[in-house]
C-alpha cells in the first residue's frame, strides 16, 4: 500500500504507513473493505465438523487454575546464574508473550541479591526504629488490621535494558527489557505506621532491610516514605509470591526496583542515606570523569514497541497494530509518539485506559505496512513534561560504562522479508 492511494485509505498521520490512532473508534466498520481482509481460502477445505472438545467432557474443577498447556512456552526468561551463587540472579518477564498492563504473578520478573527466603509469616515482624519517638514492631496479624490501599504500579530493575545500552542484541524484547513488571499492590501505607511511631528531630531518610540471607538494605528519602510508599501484602489480589517478597515488601512507586525491598522486616529512620554496598558499589552511575551518580532513584520516562519487536516476523504487507508499553517513575504517561520512518515523522499513539501514575500504560497505533523497509520506534512523554531521550542523550545522562537507568529510545527495523531486528536509530 503506498501513500499515493491514501485518498481511498484511512488517514495517514506520519510517514511510512502510520494511521490515525482513533482509526478503530471512528472508522472501524469501514476498515475491512478499505484495508482488505486476508483472502478467502481457495484451496480445498475439509467440511466443518465439531472438534473433539465439543463432543466429550474435559477435566473438572481445580484448586488453583493454571494456564492452558498450549501456553506452556509462556515462562519467565531465565538468567544464567554464576555457579558460585546459583540462587542469585534474575529472570525476566516475557513481554512479547503478554499484553495489557498487568503482569501475571508467576511471570513477574525476579532479581534476587542472594536467594528467595522461605519465610513463615507467623514468625515475621516489621520493626521500625531509629529516629522515632517509640520504636515498635508489628506482627502479621497486627498489620492485617490496618487500613489498606491498592495501587497499580510498575516495578523496573534499574539494570533493565542495560544490554541495549551497551550493544544491539538480537534477543527477544523480554530478554532485553523484561526486568519490568506491573501489578496491583495492596497494603498499609508506611506513613500510617510512621505516624504511630512518631518521628524525632533530624529524621530525613529511612533504611529498609529485607529478611533474606544477604539482608539487602536500601535507603529512601523520608519525604518519599511519607508520600506513597506501601508495605505491600498482596499482589494482584493474592498474597505476594515468595519471590516477590512474601509476606511483605516495600512498594516505592516509580523508584528503581531494588529500593522496593522484598521480605522487608526492619526500617530504621535515620538522618541521612546509608550508603550501603547496594547504593555505592552497585546501582550507581559511573560518569566519564570518574565521579558517580548515587541515589538515581526515580526512573525516567520510557517506552517500548513490543508488537512487532526483535525476532518476530511479519507475514505479509497490510494492516498491523503496533502496540507497546510506556511508563515513567515521575508520574503518568501523557503521550507516546510512534515513528515508522526512523524518526523523520512521529504521530501520537492511542493510550489504552486506564492511564495511571507510575504505572505501565499500553499504547496502540494502527499501521499499514507497505512491505518495504521500516524503522519503528516509540517515544514517551510524562505528565511532568519529561521526554524519553535518544540513545545518545541517555548515555550522556548516566555514563557509558554502567548498566543502570538506561531509558533510551528503542528502534526496531522491519526488513522487506518481514523480519524485525534491533538497530540503532
Amino acid at each position, binding site marked *: 500500500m503506498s501513500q499515493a492511494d491514501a485518498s481511498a485509505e484511512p488517514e495517514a498521520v506520519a510517514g511510512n504507513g502510520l494511521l490515525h490512532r482513533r482509526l478503530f473508534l471512528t472508522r472501524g466498520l469501514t476498515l475491512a473493505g478499505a484495508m482488505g481482509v486476508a483472502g478467502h481460502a481457495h484451496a480445498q477445505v475439509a467440511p466443518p465438523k465439531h472438534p473433539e472438545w465439543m463432543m466429550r467432557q474435559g477435566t473438572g474443577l481445580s484448586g488453583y487454575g493454571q494456564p492452558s498447556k498450549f501456553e506452556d512456552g509462556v515462562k519467565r526468561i531465565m538468567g544464567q546464574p*554464576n555457579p*558460585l*551463587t546459583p540462587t*542469585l540472579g534474575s529472570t525476566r518477564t516475557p513481554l512479547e508473550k503478554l499484553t495489557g498492563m498487568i503482569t501475571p504473578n508467576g511471570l513477574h520478573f525476579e532479581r534476587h*541479591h*542472594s536467594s528467595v527466603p522461605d519465610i513463615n509469616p507467623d514468625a515475621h515482624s516489621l520493626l*521500625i*526504629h*531509629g529516629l522515632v519517638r517509640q*520504636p*515498635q*514492631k*508489628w506482627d502479621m496479624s*497486627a498489620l492485617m*488490621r*490496618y*487500613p489498606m490501599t491498592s495501587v497499580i504500579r510498575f516495578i523496573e530493575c534499574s539494570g533493565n535494558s542495560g544490554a541495549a545500552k551497551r550493544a544491539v542484541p538480537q534477543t527477544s524484547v523480554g530478554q532485553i527489557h523484561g526486568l519490568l513488571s506491573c501489578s496491583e499492590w495492596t497494603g498499609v501505607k508506611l506513613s500510617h*505506621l*510512621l*505516624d*504511630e*511511631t*512518631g*518521628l*524525632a*528531630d533530624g*529524621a530525613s531518610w529511612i533504611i529498609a*532491610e529485607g529478611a533474606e*540471607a*544477604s*539482608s539487602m*538494605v536500601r535507603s529512601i*528519602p*523520608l*519525604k518519599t516514605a*511519607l*508520600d506513597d510508599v506501601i508495605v505491600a501484602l498482596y499482589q494482584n489480589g493474592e498474597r505476594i509470591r515468595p519471590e516477590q517478597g512474601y509476606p511483605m515488601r516495600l512498594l516505592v512507586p516509580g523508584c528503581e526496583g531494588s529500593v522496593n525491598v522484598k521480605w522487608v522486616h*526492619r526500617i*530504621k529512620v*535515620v538522618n541521612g542515606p*546509608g*550508603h*550501603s*554496598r547496594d547504593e*555505592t*558499589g552497585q546501582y550507581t*552511575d*559511573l560518569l566519564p*570523569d*570518574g*565521579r*558517580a*551518580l*548515587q*541515589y*538515581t*532513584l*526515580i526512573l*525516567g520516562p520510557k517506552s517500548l514497541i513490543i508488537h512487532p519487536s526483535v525476532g518476530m516476523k511479519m507475514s505479509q504487507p497490510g494492516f498491523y497494530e503496533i502496540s507497546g508499553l510506556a511508563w515513567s517513575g515521575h508520574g503518568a504517561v501523557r503521550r507516546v509518539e510512534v515513528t515508522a520512518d526512523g524518526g523523520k515523522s512521529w504521530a501520537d499513539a492511542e493510550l489504552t485506559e486506564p492511564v495511571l501514575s507510575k504505572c505501565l500504560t499500553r499504547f496502540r497505533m494502527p499501521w499499514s505496512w507497505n512491505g518495504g523497509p521500516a524503522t519503528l520506534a516509540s517515544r514517551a512523554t510524562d505528565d511532568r513534561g519529561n521526554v524519553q531521550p535518544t540513545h545518545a542523550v541517555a548515555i550522556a545522562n548516566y555514563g557509558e*560504562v554502567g548498566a543502570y537507568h538506561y531509558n533510551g529510545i528503542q528502534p526496531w527495523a522491519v526488513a522487506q522479508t518481514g523480519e524485525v531486528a534491533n538497530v540503532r536509530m
Partner: protein
Amino acid sequence: MSACRFALAAGVLLAAACATEQNSASTASPHLGKAMTDVELAFWDSAILIDGSNLPAGSGSSAQGKVVYQQKCAACHGATGTETDTRLTPLVGGRGSLATAQPVRTLGSYWPYSTIVFDYIRRAMPYNAPKTLSNDEVYALTAYLLQANGIIGEAAVMDRTTLPAVQMPNRNGFVMASENVK
C-alpha cells in the same frame, strides 16, 4: 493528620502543633504496634551507619583477616581477591581506573566509606553461611581487604574507633542524583 504529615515531610517536627492532630489520629489508627525491648533493638540495629556509631565491640588485624579469608572467602573470591575469572566483582585493585574506559570498581577503588565493608560482610557473607562470622572475624576481614587495597598498613587494627576513621580513596567520588530523588 495530613497537616501533620506535611510538617514531617518538610523535615520539621512540630511536636506541639501536631499534638492535637495526633490525638485525633490515634482514635482512627489501630495502634497495634508493640514496643521493642532494648535487647531486640540492639540485636536488630545491625546495618552499620557511615559514622560507625553502631559498630559493635571487637577488633581484628589484616594478618588475622588473611587467615579467615583463606578459610572462608578464597574459594569463591580467589586467592588474592584480584581474580576476575570467578565472575564475581574483584575485591582488590582498580585504583585510578574509574575515569578510564575500563573501570574496575572494587571496594578499594570505588566504595566511599570504610564502614560499608564491615556492614556488607557481616550481614551477607560468606554467601553460603551469612551471619556466622564473629565480629572479630569481620573486623579482621575488613582490615585484610583494606590493607590488600593499600588503604591501611599491615599493622593497623580495625575496631569501632579506627574503622570509621579510615579515609577511602573514592570518598568524594559520589554525587547525589538530585533530580532523581524527591
